[in-house]
């Protein structure tokens, strides 16, 4: 059904040895609108089964990037592939679920009819429509409201319906552009649950968001976008990993203590030595150095940054 293009073969090795297949790949994707640069060279790889967070302040180019991936707009330059086919390939869209950022479905249709329309547009087997529609309504919490006109839906319900539409037909890749922007805390929790469910089924999820806490909780890996450029792309665990450490030390003289400052910005607090801006890989070296100098280590407490703190640091570094 799907034609694999030559471009897929030319894709670079996947980001992670555990990942065997690249689902999204872009190389120097640039999008300009007149003199405005919306995206200034996006190079990105997302592997199958990954939950990938795309973070950035408003206007960073996140939505433009998603539209380029879906093929709703053409890149000014650069190339890419989606599900093994060049960007914009029509057949690849059969295996794609997409929730746009700003949308309003036909107000004169019922929720069920919107879902049915998308079953038809996605060319799903007719026999599967009923089951798909019911499952989608239940998953997004709209059971009981499926026969109401979309015109009577609240913004949050419209967003739930949009999610349901994106989940139809068991897509291999789901692109969600700010899926929780209109949702209350309960709705946000539902979205996290839905994404967790997708992860369990091995579905790749590309989540556009400016809600850092949300991304931190559900994503395996994030890219941070600012002013059309990726300023960081790492697993969430690494991004928020210890950049600081506190070590409780006995039996070291002031000179030996002072010599440890070579490992990072150090502050003394009684028995505790606090290191800031330390590469986590070097923590064992610090401990070894303390022991070598005749000290005893009573405790090592790795610090943990929130993604929010890290996000602002990275933005500042990128803009410096």
């Amino acid at each position, binding site marked *: 059904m799907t034609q694999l293009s030559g471009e897929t073969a030319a894709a670079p090795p996947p980001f992670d040895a555990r990942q065997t297949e690249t689902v999204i790949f872009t190389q120097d994707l640039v999008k300009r609108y007149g003199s405005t640069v919306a995206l200034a060279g996006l190079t990105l790889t997302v592997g199958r089964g990954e939950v990938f967070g795309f973070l950035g302040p408003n206007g960073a180019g996140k939505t433009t990037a998603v539209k380029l991936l879906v093929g*709703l707009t053409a890149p000014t330059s650069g190339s890419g592939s989606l599900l093994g086919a060049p960007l914009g390939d029509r057949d690849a869209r059969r295996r794609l679920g*997409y929730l746009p950022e700003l949308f309003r479905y036909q107000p004169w249709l019922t929720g069920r009819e919107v879902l049915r329309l998308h079953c038809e547009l996605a*060319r799903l087997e007719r026999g599967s429509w009923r089951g798909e529609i019911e499952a989608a309504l239940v998953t997004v919490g709209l059971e009981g409201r499926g026969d109401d006109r979309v015109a009577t839906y609240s913004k949050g319900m419209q967003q739930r319906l949009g999610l349901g539409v994106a989940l139809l037909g068991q897509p291999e890749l789901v692109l969600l552009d700010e899926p929780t922007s209109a949702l209350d805390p309960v709705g946000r929790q539902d979205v996290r649950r839905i994404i967790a469910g997708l992860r369990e089924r091995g579905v790749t999820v590309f989540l556009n968001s400016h809600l850092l806490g949300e991304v931190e909780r559900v994503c395996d890996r994030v890219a941070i976008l600012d002013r059309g450029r990726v300023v960081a792309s790492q697993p969430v665990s690494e991004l928020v990993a210890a950049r600081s450490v506190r070590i409780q030390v006995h039996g070291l003289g002031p000179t030996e203590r002072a010599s440890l400052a070579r490992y990072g910005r150090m502050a003394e607090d009684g028995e505790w030595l606090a290191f800031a801006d330390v590469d986590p890989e070097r923590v064992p070296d610090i401990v070894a150095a303390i022991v070598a100098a005749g000290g005893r280590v009573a405790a090592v407490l790795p610090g943990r940054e929130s993604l929010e703190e890290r996000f602002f640091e990275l933005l500042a570094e990128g803009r410096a």
Partner: protein
Amino acid sequence: MSGAPLAARARRDRLGDEVAGIATIARLSLLEALRRRLLWALIGLTVLLVVVTAWAFQRLLEASPLPADETQLAVSQLLILVAFMFSFVLAMTAVFVGSPAIAGEVESGEALAILSRPIRRADVVLGHWVGFGIVVVTYAILAGLGEIGAVALTTGYLPPYPLFAAGFVALEGLVLLTLAVLLSTRLGVVTGGAIAVVLYGINWVMGVVGQAGAILGNDAIRTAGTISRIVMPTDVAWRGAMASLEPPTALLSSLGRTSVIFAVNPFYAAASPPPDQLAYAVVWIAVGLSLAIALFSRREL
């Protein structure tokens, strides 16, 4: 060996896909017309109009002091006036349904959801055109024949080509629908709709003026009319409708009327448009749709 049949089958599947895409959007457009109560409002008002005009025609005949031939001429003129109103309503309907076809979907973001599916933009444009085209043609035929039938029953005047009259009005509606859809691929709903209505008005006026120029032998005015016909063939179709509703020329001659008297009468067509003008109208629609597809396909969403 099996390569050729397989390729043919793949082509057929592709074709099936495309027809399916057009059919999906056409059905959606029809459903929209029904759900928005547009069709019902039109049908209700049309039935009312047919009843009221039938009553008026009957009263008019009862009180007519004119001889039969003159009365027939008067009835045909009034019928054309009523037909003009129907064609005007249809033209506005075509603009009102056509203008939001693409622009409305882009503005609401529906287009993003629809076009993320395996459907071509061409299918979306053609689907809307087919769906709303069915509404336009059905209305033209039902309303046109309904009115002509009512007049025939009450006055006994049956125009020479009633089916052609309805067909020409439908053609006029399709031309305007094409224009509205074309404009909606790049302009907002209100802007595109307003431009279509203004162009329609200018085209009608230029048709009247152009005919006057032709009958009175004024070349400059006649040329202006020709240019207007080329820019947009709505008036060509309308003139066809009028010609189909007029009594035979023999009647006019027997009453001693010559075309000069009707030179500037907006409700008189000197002749049915020649086949080349009608063929041009069809080509105009095809080119308009192709342009709409090309413009929408290049549009950034």
